[in-house]
């Protein structure tokens, strides 16, 4: 079983949802970002999404745009992001780690080389925002052949006709983007999320994680009652943006993560 399968199976046994955290690699700098990454599992993150910085993050709102800019100004690149994953794996072999970003840096790195290096570094899955199933042959298929899960975003605009196309070739989990919009935007209603989860369950047995607009432990708990995973990104990254020092950034992200985790763990009790 892959790390993602194992983790979601364990949590299902414990009758709780996964806390899935997103941070951008190299934000606010390599060392602080690595410290955050290494600290997330102990702070309660069950699955980690690590953003691969890109100059043109078209699907992201202001918080993650700025995170990308900070990381790139600190000279983060894809090779360093893979290096971070290798360092993370030195003392963590259980927490699934998913790289998330846009296709061009991977395209430039070279898809076969990227897949080889990502697998060797200990990457479990990929979320590539601008890589729809229409282009499966370019990245999704070779990644899965190498044992790396390819996680799809489904959205409020993905209707029942299109869902099978999107889910075909999805693995690891399904990421439901609960609002049509960019990251960090307003939250969806619980009614909408519940309906969406039910609809997705009719089409797939994969775990379903919900993201976009979830910021507080209370919101995370509410979603954790409905879905298999709760994704939080911008709210964590805001702690980096407002920090006066690297240590403040690290502490801010990890303490918010701990609070979210508390919410998720107690949600179904």
């Amino acid at each position, binding site marked *: 079983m892959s790390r993602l399968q194992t983790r979601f199976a364990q949590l299902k046994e414990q009758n709780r949802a996964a806390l899935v955290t997103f941070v951008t690699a190299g934000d606010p700098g390599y060392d602080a970002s690595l410290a955050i990454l290494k600290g997330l599992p102990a702070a309660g993150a069950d699955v980690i999404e690590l953003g691969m910085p890109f100059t043109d993050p078209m699907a992201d709102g202001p918080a993650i745009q700025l995170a990308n800019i900070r990381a790139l100004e600190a000279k983060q690149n894809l090779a360093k992001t893979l290096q971070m994953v290798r360092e993370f794996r030195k003392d963590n072999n259980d927490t699934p780690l998913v790289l998330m970003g846009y296709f*061009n840096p*991977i*395209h*430039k790195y070279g898809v076969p080389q990227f897949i080889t290096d990502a697998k060797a570094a200990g990457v479990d899955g990929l979320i590539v925002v*601008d890589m729809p199933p*229409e282009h499966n042959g370019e990245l999704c298929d070779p990644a899965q052949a190498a044992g790396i899960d390819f996680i799809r975003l489904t959205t409020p*605009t993905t209707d029942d006709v299109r869902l099978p196309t999107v889910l075909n070739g999805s693995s690891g989990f399904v990421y439901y983007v609960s609002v049509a919009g*960019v990251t960090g935007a307003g939250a969806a209603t619980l009614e909408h999320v519940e309906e969406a989860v039910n609809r997705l369950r009719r089409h797939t047995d994969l775990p379903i994680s919900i993201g976009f607009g979830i910021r507080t432990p209370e919101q995370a708990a509410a979603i954790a009652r409905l879905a298999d995973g709760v994704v939080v990104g911008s709210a964590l990254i805001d702690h980096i943006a407002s920090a006066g020092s690297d240590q403040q950034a690290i502490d801010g992200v990890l303490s918010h993560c701990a609070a979210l985790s508390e919410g998720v763990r107690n949600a179904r009790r």
Partner: protein
Amino acid sequence: MTQSQTDLRNGPDVNGLFGAFGGRYVAETLMPLILELAREYEAAKIDPAFNEELAYFQRDYVGRPSPLYFAERLTEFCGGAKIYLKREELNHTGAHKINNCIGQILLARRMGKKRIIAETGAGMHGVATATVAARFGLQCVIYMGTTDIERQQANVFRMKLLGAEVIPVVAGTGTLKDAMNEALRDWVTNVDSTFYLIGTVAGPHPYPAMVRDFQAVIGKETRDQLQAQEGRLPDSLVACIGGGSNAMGLFHPFLDDTSVEIIGVEAAGHGIETGKHAASLNGGVPGVLHGNRTFLLQDDDGQIIDAHSISAGLDYPGIGPEHAWLHDIGRVQYTSVTDDEALDAFHKCCRLEGIIPALESAHALAEVFKRAPTLPKDHLMVINLSGRGDKDMQTVMHHMEQSQQEKH
């Protein structure tokens, strides 16, 4: 004259690919919209009522056909090829951009969309979009980089007069690429109500093909007009390229005529060797941005490098995918000219023909000044004069003052 028939005009394939270029690299939220847009466009394209309406607005609102003008003084000055200018700058709103805007707004209306968004660089596409939105009574939001707002204030004012909301984009270098990112973010947020009116032959399928089809009226008219005036095909075509819509509009109807030499002119900015340019084909490598695979200015990590050109309309780090393919197969020759060469051509065109060209179009003219003198007098050369230069007064004035100071 016999023509060799090839089949270079059939692209893209069902997935929006021109060879290895094009495609639909967008977030899932947008995929259903893009698929719907493709279906709607395919239906509209063969609907006689849609085409009649399009023809009506092209004639009575845009002012088509635009003249194909024999530029006698330019021809004399160069002393070689016989030079014709396709006068797209005489269109309503002063550039070729309106050809595409009229087509897309009719499609938006057919699809029941109430809100139009667009990105703009030089502001010509923004003005053309605001114009057609006003004409059809639709809400209009234009995204424009802060750098471009600074250097194209007249166009910003025009858009506002026409009732559009102009939203400044501070991200990146505040130019066209950043405006396009922001427009995509708006679209992903307002999927139900909004039609994204892309201004060039780039973006996800079906935009590159659709914008090309709406602009191809330029080449079709040129073909008929030159036939009437000279009784034959041109020997060469020259057009400037940012995203590449005016060039594709002129080139496309001639792609299968192998006797016609086709030249696209990129903006070399301070010079390609300086790294400060906007020449995606001559100075970039293939990658994926804004929904399509094409040539891009990027670094070793695949990060997009900001383009530079004196002309805001060419200041984009990518190029339409059909151009990438035509470059790849060698059908079109892509050259580049610098800011200084374009400015020199700008002044010459003003003095020789009494036409103030857009700085974008001045890039095409600069290539003509290099090329025409070496060609025989019976060589027929057509240049797409894609826009007028009124919007560029501030930039040209600023540049003239600077070069005055450097002389002292």
